[in-house]
């Protein structure tokens, strides 16, 4: 068994070897610039780019013409939100609706717009991480121009009711953007039926390469955007810059594989995830973060109470996971997602996100269960807080001496 075991598939995934194989010829002999119009090197590259566009569109029930290539979901989110907000500000208004548990790529973009004079409403989800259609409808105003809600949360894996939210937006004439970076290959997406106007995708969360993503821009009814990157007028003028053929081919192949394999794969991964959860259930004082039903099958986010976050991460070095502890970001704040759900700082700090994937085995899961039992036990043995809890002292009533 190769250590550390990778259980961080929501941070990024390996490129599937079948995808890598498809990419390599576009790095070597077929190296042309897809924008070159005067020779075969350019044409074959352009052809490959268009094939990939078809594949990306097929996975999400879209028309290939609706797909714009970007450098990744962060750029897609920026282009969608800023592009629509700027284009429609004068006709629709300058109010934006989003959710406190969105990815930074959305939150920071909205903050930037606020600095430019837009107003924003941030919906606080319920304790299970979900927002309700009622909450959403109440947040919309007559001057709301864009609403942005992620399909799947990156930390806790909960699935927001985007079909219902889309209906509300369409009815009220609000442009609806959905960050689907964590959703592709994890749940069915059908843009033929969803009332979504803009949707962001990433390749590297779905076994494709880093450095490429896409933005779905609906044409019927037509959504217009102000470009964020100007130049040669690539991608319908919405995103200029030489297209990275090999990366685009990789995204196309990754999305094709996801379309063909996702049903069976998700069943297998769900069983592994459930096995993991079951394996933890005899550990006292654990809390699953986020709704367990409305959730993608590969995510398990658990807080281990009475364990210090940083020590826990150090203790479980043999598995590669993310934690809600400060160490995952430059700031000292614990996970803002878990805080938004109403978790205490302590529980947010001691949370671990396990995300399973295509190459996770039963042995990996069993190893993890055993490791966590062992390490949680050890850490709690050393913890005075755990002793106090066992003695029945309510820690919230303890008066701590100040130093």
């Amino acid at each position: 068994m190769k250590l550390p075991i990778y259980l961080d598939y929501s941070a990024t995934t390996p490129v599937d070897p079948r995808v890598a194989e498809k990419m390599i010829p576009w790095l070597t002999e077929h190296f042309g610039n897809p924008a070159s119009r005067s020779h075969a090197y350019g044409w074959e590259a352009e052809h490959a780019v268009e094939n990939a566009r078809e594949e990306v569109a097929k996975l999400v029930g879209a028309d290939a013409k609706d797909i714009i290539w970007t450098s990744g979901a962060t750029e897609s989110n920026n282009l969608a939100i800023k592009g629509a907000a700027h284009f429609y500000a004068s006709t629709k208004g300058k109010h934006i609706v989003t959710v406190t548990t969105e990815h930074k790529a959305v939150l920071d973009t909205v903050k930037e717009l606020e600095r430019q004079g837009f107003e924003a409403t941030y919906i606080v989800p319920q304790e299970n991480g979900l927002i309700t259609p009622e909450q959403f409808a109440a947040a919309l105003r007559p001057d709301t121009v864009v609403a942005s809600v992620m399909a799947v949360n990156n930390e806790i894996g909960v699935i927001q009711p985007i079909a219902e939210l889309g209906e509300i937006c369409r009815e009220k004439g609000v442009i609806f953007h959905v960050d689907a970076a964590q959703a592709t290959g994890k749940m069915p997406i059908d843009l033929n039926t969803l009332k979504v106007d803009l949707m962001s995708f990433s390749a590297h969360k779905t076994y494709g390469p880093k450095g490429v993503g896409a933005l779905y821009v609906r044409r019927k009814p037509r959504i217009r955007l102000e470009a964020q990157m100007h130049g040669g007028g690539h991608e319908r003028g919405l995103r200029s810059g030489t297209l990275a053929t090999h990366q685009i081919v990789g995204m196309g192949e990754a999305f094709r594989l996801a379309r063909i394999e996702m049903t069976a794969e998700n069943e297998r991964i769900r069983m592994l995830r459930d096995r993991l959860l079951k394996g933890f259930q005899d550990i006292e004082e654990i809390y699953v973060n986020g709704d367990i039903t409305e959730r993608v099958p590969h995510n398990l986010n658990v807080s281990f109470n009475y364990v210090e976050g940083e020590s826990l991460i150090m203790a479980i070095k043999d598995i590669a996971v993310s934690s809600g502890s400060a160490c995952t970001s430059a700031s000292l704040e614990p996970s803002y997602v878990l805080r938004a759900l109403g978790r205490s700082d302590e529980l947010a700090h001691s949370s671990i996100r396990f995300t399973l994937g295509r190459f996770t085995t039963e042995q990996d899961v069993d190893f993890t269960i055993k490791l966590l039992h062992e390490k949680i036990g050890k850490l709690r043995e050393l913890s005075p807080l755990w002793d106090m809890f066992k003695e029945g002292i309510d820690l919230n009533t303890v008066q701590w001496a100040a130093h």
Partner: protein
Amino acid sequence: MFAPVYFDHNATTPLAPRVLEAMLPYLTQQYGNASSRHEYGRAARRAIDEARQQVAAAVGAHPTEVIFTSGGSEANNLFIKGVTGLLPKGVIAISAIEHPCVREPAKQLARAGWRLRELAVNADCRITSTDFSVALAEQPALISIMLANNETGVIQDVAQWAVQASGTLKKSASAWFHVDAVQAFGRVPLDFRMLNAAGVHALTLSAHKIGGPKGAGALVLDKRVALQPLIAGGGHERGLRSGTENVAAIVGFGVAAELAVTDLQTKATALSAMRRLLEEGLSQLGAYIFAAQVERLPNTSYFAFADMDGETLVGRLDRAGFAVAAGAACSSANPSPSHVLLAMGIAPELARGAVRVSLGVQNTQHQVHDFLAVLKQTLSELQKMKHSPQGNTEFITTAQARMQAHLPRDNDVATLN
């Protein structure tokens, strides 16, 4: 596949084998997200750090001055919009021959209330001292001049212009000086320390023009310059460029940068020799060679034949096995001539005939000989056709057919990459 001889290295370059070798492990094995704290993430972070050092070393910059982007277009957009976003509206000066990824952001600023001042060039594609001085008197807040032009290959003396700009402009005015070095990098020596001392504040680089992968570029930035990010969210690259790092491409960029500046002089000499051979032959065939008398990139030759349509010629050359570029935009039925040639004062009829050959180190003198033979043959065929009773009913070339097939697409790419 029958592989045509590739003479279009200013559009993109083949990947150096060592670059591919360096990249592959970061796709399937070392696939961590560089922001992750575990070993997979740390390995990715180390790889990016090393690439940053390689790129910095190749252009004489400090690693902390290198901001990775998705490519040259993004780096140019980032600087132009990033700087102006924090300044009161004023004048932005760019040369008349800039790439669209400088021109278009500048035009966007003009729509938003900035005044766009184009710096004129002479018939040799060089910025003139007279016009530059006049432009400086208008106190531009930002000046952008490309080091080497993608079409003609002509090199501007950016250090001289930067010295003049920093000497003339009021101390109070923050005139930032930007240089798009995408085409120059790896073909002529580049020293950011020296340029920075002269008054250049930022350089744009691209990986795929130097034997690296598409999808990676960099803005080399003087840290005194305040910049607004183009892409927000997560705070990567010192907060100036958010988004999960494209580790494999960045690693490839690093190795390509290192290789590009290795034996640069030897490679330049070989390229110059090939080009001399090419241009001697072209002259014998009666070509007009643009900017032939001034300092150019050693690999680039840009020429036209009187009364000979560039599109037709490149289409024929393609079928004969040579991949070159035409100077006219092919996005309309009536191709508009290159804005670069028009800025040089070249007559539109001659500009419509423009053909660009851009050589690479893999090319050989033998290939140049073959090319000249094919060109001679093609020219005489086209001449014959022109004087035949059918007149202008030249059948459509493969290239033209392709181009016309693209017509319905809106906003098509209308430039030489």
